[in-house]
């Protein structure tokens, strides 16, 4: 039996807050052997990041380890002094973080920061510090490493910053690297290359790694073993394939079910008890009589914000009545601009937007609130935390469009309409009097949807409505949106970076790259037989969940 590299036993962490002490970890047990990759997965609030910070002893002032033990290379480091910790961190035990740009010092060059790490552990030879830094940049496969040495973080892309971060972390040849959500916030294609790099470095150097992620797909693809965390406890751990093939704990089951696989349908995602809320629905027959105009038609729409490139460059597509269209692209592809154009919050430079046979691009966005079409086109925004007025209760938020667009005054009529919208969005009535900060992410998303459906629109634009939500919440919200479409015949425009999610909800797909349409067609056929190279790359990079698909280089 080999000795564990890292062993965490019954680790307890509490935070002192203004409302008293909050226990973040209730006794965690995990262990890791040399060269092994452990995935810690869980949704927000599960304590996975706290675990990693506690192991590194990087908890902020409010956090305290109140019990248990952390043993690294046979030494108890739970109560190690600052000097001992300092020698350990960055050399034997290293860490990378999410949001790499913020994790780098903005006013020091890449070279200085790498050299700082080497110098801190006495690994620096004065004569060729620059060569050492350069070698590290080469090791992380950064393009044009010589030029990057003198660059500042703000001059690098997010992916490049993460590479620099990795270069710093591996500078002193650590035996364990903790990666805390290393790809969150990066584009899918960048995510893919960063993970490949990490796996490669790990294999070359025989380093152990702890990958902390909310993304089951990512964990399944890159980890030997998985620990599932919920509310400060490890509820289940085991070999990746075995764990995901036959999850034992109910939470793991729910999480696995909610993570979309290549083959899953919306009905697969939510657990049966939640799905029962929604009565089985029969798909309404789609009315596609010849001669009726499409619900929405974009004709050569162009929008630029004054830069050298156009944000939206000659985009045309249609959505039939009651149809659903997915708009897919990475950040900067112009998909959010497009959704605001269609919602008539901003004006196109050229081209036409036709709603139900009537051109709506002629009315300037400034005056569109007076148009009778205003209530027909509604939008649900990306981040539920940011899309509700902090000073409005849920009721006021939902009533807002009714007051403005239908002139409803406070009274029974308004009450009825708000309650109806809340019911359609699956929002419990007792939450209507709450303010946004008193609601969970999923509940806020429902308020946002209720507000959008309250004026009974005919087209609903969904701008990444689930991007900020945990998978289990995402599953429920997706089902809700699908039901709205089937029962009420609302046309949907679903904007997302996640092809796999779009596939489940939408009939048709439009793939955008740098403001241009690269591919359109029925979602199933694009998903199975992508034509454009960019679409193929997107599809490959999507870390959809597949317990069979592991890409550990050392086993290859």
């Amino acid at each position, binding site marked *: 039996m080999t000795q564990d590299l890292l062993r965490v036993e019954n680790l307890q962490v509490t*935070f002192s*807050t*203004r*409302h008293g002490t*909050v226990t*973040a970890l209730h006794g965690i047990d995990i262990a890791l052997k040399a060269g092994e990759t452990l995935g810690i997965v869980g949704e*927000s*609030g*599960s*304590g*996975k*990041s*706290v675990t990693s910070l506690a192991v590194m002893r990087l908890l*902020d002032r*409010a*956090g305290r380890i109140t019990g248990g033990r952390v043993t690294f290379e046979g030494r108890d480091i739970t109560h190690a002094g600052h000097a001992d910790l300092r020698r350990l961190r960055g050399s034997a035990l290293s860490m990378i973080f999410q949001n790499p740009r913020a994790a780098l010092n903005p006013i020091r060059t890449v070279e200085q920061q790498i050299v700082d790490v080497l110098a801190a552990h006495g690994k620096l030879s004065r004569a060729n510090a620059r060569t050492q830094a350069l070698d590290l940049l080469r090791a992380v496969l950064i393009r044009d490493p010589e030029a990057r040495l003198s660059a500042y973080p703000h001059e690098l892309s997010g992916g490049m910053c993460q590479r620099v971060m990795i270069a710093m972390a591996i500078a002193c040849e650590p035996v364990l690297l903790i990666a805390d959500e290393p790809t969150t916030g990066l584009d899918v294609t960048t995510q893919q290359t960063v993970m490949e790099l990490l796996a490669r470095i790990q294999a070359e150097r025989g380093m152990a790694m702890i990958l902390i992620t909310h993304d089951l797909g990512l964990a399944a693809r890159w980890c030997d073993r998985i620990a599932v965390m919920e509310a400060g406890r490890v509820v289940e751990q085991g070999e990746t394939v075995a764990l995901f093939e036959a999850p034992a704990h109910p939470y793991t089951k729910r999480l696995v079910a909610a993570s979309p696989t290549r083959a899953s349908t919306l009905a697969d995602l939510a657990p049966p008890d939640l799905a029962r809320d929604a009565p089985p629905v029969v798909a309404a027959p789609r009315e596609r009589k010849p001669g009726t105009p499409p619900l929405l038609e974009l004709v050569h729409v162009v929008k630029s914000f004054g830069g050298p490139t156009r944000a939206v460059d000659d985009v045309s597509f249609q959505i039939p009545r009651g149809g659903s269209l997915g708009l897919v692209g990475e950040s900067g592809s112009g998909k959010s601009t497009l959704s*605001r154009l269609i*919602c008539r*919050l901003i004006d196109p430079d050229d081209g036409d937007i036709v709603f139900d046979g009537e051109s709506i691009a002629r009315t300037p966005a*400034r*005056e569109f*609130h*007076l148009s009778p079409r*205003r*209530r027909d*086109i*509604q*939008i649900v*925004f*990306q*981040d539920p935390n*940011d*899309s*509700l*007025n*902090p*000073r*409005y209760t849920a009721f006021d*938020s939902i009533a*807002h*469009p009714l007051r*403005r*667009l239908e002139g409803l005054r406070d009274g029974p009529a308004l009450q009825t309409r708000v309650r109806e919208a809340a019911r359609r969005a699956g929002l419990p009535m007792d939450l209507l009097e709450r*303010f946004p*900060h*008193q609601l*969970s992410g999923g509940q806020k998303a429902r308020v*946002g949807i209720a*507000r*959008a459906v309250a*004026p009974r629109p005919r087209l609903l634009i969904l701008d990444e409505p689930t991007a900020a939500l945990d998978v289990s919440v995402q599953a429920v919200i997706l089902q809700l949106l699908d039901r709205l479409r089937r029962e009420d015949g609302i046309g949907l425009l679903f904007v997302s970076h996640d092809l796999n999610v779009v596939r489940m909800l939408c009939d048709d797909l439009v793939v955008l790259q740098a403001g241009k349409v690269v591919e359109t067609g029925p979602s199933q056929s694009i998903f199975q037989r992508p034509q454009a190279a960019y679409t193929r790359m997107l599809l490959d990079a999507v870390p959809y969940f597949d317990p069979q698909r592991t890409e550990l280089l050392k086993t290859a």
Partner: protein
Amino acid sequence: MSDLVLNGSSTGRHIVYVLRSNPVTALAATGTLLLVLIAILAPVLAPYDPVASNVPQALQPPSWSHLAGTDQLGRDILSRIIWAARLDLVIAVSAVSLSFVTGAVIGGFCGYRGGRLDRWVGRFVDVLMAFPLFVLAMAMVAALGNRVENIVIATAVINLPFYIRFARAEVNVRRNAGWVEAARACGDSHLSVVLRVLLPNVLPAMAVQISLNLGWAILNAAGLSFIGLGVTAPTPEWGIMVAEGARFITTGKWWLVAMPGLALMLTVLCFNLLGDGLRDILDPRMRT
């Protein structure tokens, strides 16, 4: 920390929490209230006539009959301080409310609209703020005439850039928030977004600024009258009282300066502490 979901509590409980854990704020609030009462009840509270001179009693140190001593004309300093509270508070409150309203509206619209107008206003405000504002106020009072109204106007003008800048910044960070765009999708015009959606969200934070600026306004007004602008001689005003007492400081008559100075200090202190406390109540993260 991000992994912890802290449950929000109601505003009322939060206020009670802040006041209890921060008794200084409670004290400042009481002090401010007291100050306002003193100003209102000046005729009742002042033991002597603030302008009646009594030369035989001149330059008396604090005693039981004259708690804060007497000045070079034998006037009771305490009575003068009490009456001065009235004038100084009126000047500060009217100046600050004038600049608050104007600044909120201008700043709100600029911050929301953005673009060239906003850049110009922003640059102008930056220039104005970095310019020696006291010199500006001095020149204005001199130009408009040595009257109390003009002190109010000058103080309002030099406060204005702070409010414009503050409202602009606060609106600017929110203008792209989902709920602002949502309001437009809900049928609000741009005008209505600024006035009915954005400004109500920004006002609480600006209220904190009011409290902090009141202190600053009082200091400015007192400074102006100290150098002989604005309020004229017999009128009881803290700045003038200090200016008149300055002649006697080298001969050790400290109370002529210290007493009105203390009144100024305590007033400004109350406003500032109250402002800091209000900031804690509104946003504990902003505590500095």
